[in-house]
């Protein structure tokens, strides 16, 4: 049989440790699966969604209330997108907490960070496509943040929203990025990320001479586990999608300040909370970029864990990286909780 990409990702046998749930948490695999669900449900939504200010809301209501199984399709798209952020972050934390980002995997770690950024942009553009009252201030504040960048801000703003102010062009552009530009980047980077996993020697485990557990599992056992994980994930996703509808408010009207929900989408609440302190460029652009840069530098700043500890939880030889990522995580969670608390 001619080897395919599938065979590249599923060698005849792999070390049993590489596919243990308590090691990988299944987070990377789940993220890939959720991305596939998002692609399929997204294509289905494209058959009905109309990206104009007048019709966006009505077309979403049509999907939700009239199209057979439309509500399930839309809710699955919504929930898969929210879960993807969580599984991707768990995957990132697992990789750092097991020292798996260390050479030779440092480049794939960067590809993974790029995927996280693309995912956040996809989530934000998808959120904006609702074009309802609840997204208005997030759109205004988010795009004005871009404007706050010195020198290039105004030009970048025009490029982003399609003119000097928010308008129908803005929806067209966010739609184009959401369904094509960002998805294309996602497909390229995701394929590359998966390809590199095997190229770098599979999921990180200690080298064979230092390995305590030499058992291996076959390709068939690996696929069996993947199928089991997919079935479980699908059941959970379906249950959530059937019982918890994705939010939708009345269509956005220009120039109103009355009803809009001033909250950012949950994954950007931590940025909104920092913006309550002051300077938009510093807190809304520089700090998030700083956090991202710090994460990207981890493989280059901290020593490689000793080989016997590679691919094990909390290697002693790599405490600094774990402390930094844990602090970033706590910082973001704390700000998010503060932002969710009712004001006054």
């Amino acid at each position, binding site marked *: 049989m001619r080897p395919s990409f599938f065979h590249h990702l599923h060698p005849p046998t792999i070390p049993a440790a590489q596919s243990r749930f308590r090691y990988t948490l299944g987070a990377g695999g789940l993220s890939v699966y959720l991305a596939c669900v998002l692609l399929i449900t997204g294509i289905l939504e494209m058959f009905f969604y109309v990206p104009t200010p007048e019709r966006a809301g009505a077309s979403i209501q049509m999907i939700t209330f009239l199209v057979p199984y439309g509500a399930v399709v839309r809710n699955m798209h919504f929930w898969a997108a929210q879960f993807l952020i969580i599984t991707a972050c768990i995957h990132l934390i697992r990789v750092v907490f097991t020292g798996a980002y260390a050479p030779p995997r440092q480049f794939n770690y960067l590809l993974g960070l790029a995927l996280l950024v693309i995912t956040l942009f996809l989530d934000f553009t998808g959120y904006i496509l609702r074009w309802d009252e609840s997204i208005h201030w997030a759109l*205004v504040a988010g795009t004005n*943040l871009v404007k*706050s960048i010195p020198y290039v801000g105004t*030009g970048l703003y025009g490029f982003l929203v399609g003119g000097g102010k928010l308008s129908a062009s803005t929806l067209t552009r966010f739609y184009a990025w959401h369904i094509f530009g960002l998805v294309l980047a996602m497909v390229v980077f995701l394929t590359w990320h998966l390809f590199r996993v095997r190229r770098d020697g599979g999921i990180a485990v200690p080298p064979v001479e230092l390995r305590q557990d030499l058992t291996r599992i076959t390709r068939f056992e690996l696929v069996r586990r993947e199928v089991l994980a997919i079935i479980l994930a699908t059941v959970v996703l379906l249950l959530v999608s059937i019982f918890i509808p994705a939010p939708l408010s009345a269509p956005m009207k220009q*120039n109103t*300040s009355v009803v809009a929900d001033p909250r950012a989408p949950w994954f950007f609440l931590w940025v909104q909370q920092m913006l309550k302190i002051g300077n938009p460029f510093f807190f809304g652009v520089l700090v998030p970029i700083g956090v991202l840069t710090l994460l990207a530098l981890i493989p280059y700043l901290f020593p490689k864990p000793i080989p016997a500890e590679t691919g094990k939880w909390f290697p002693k030889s790599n405490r600094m990286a774990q402390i930094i990522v844990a602090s970033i995580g706590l910082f973001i969670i704390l700000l998010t909780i503060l932002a969710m608390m009712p004001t006054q």
Partner: protein
Amino acid sequence: MKSNEPTLSRRSFLSTTWKLTLGLSGLLGLGGLLQYLGYQSEPASPTQFKLGDAANYPPGSRIIVPDAQAIIQNSSQGFQALSLVCPHLGCLVEPDKEGFTCPCHGSKYDPNGVYRSGPAKQSLPELRLEETTDGKLILHTD
């Protein structure tokens, strides 16, 4: 080769020319792309709003003009037109008992639009209000 001849070989000349042409074409293409993406497909917002008779804005009134994202206040000092766009990140501030509050990041202003607290650090911009000879108000937002 004579000693006073420049030492640029045919190969490196062609290679340099090739790279320069490629770089120049790239820059031209990038310039075109930026112009293409920078085109404003929507007309600019109006900067003048006819508000009608000044008598419609009696003393003590605070009336919001939604299209202009502004509020017209008639106090003892006369007319005052304030932009409701928060100078921090552009959300519309909401009038309340103590003045104005921005729903997005919590900046607060007093009833005259003067900055009180929060991340904005600036007051609400005051807009120019023109009263015509026949007693009509025109608001300028530029």
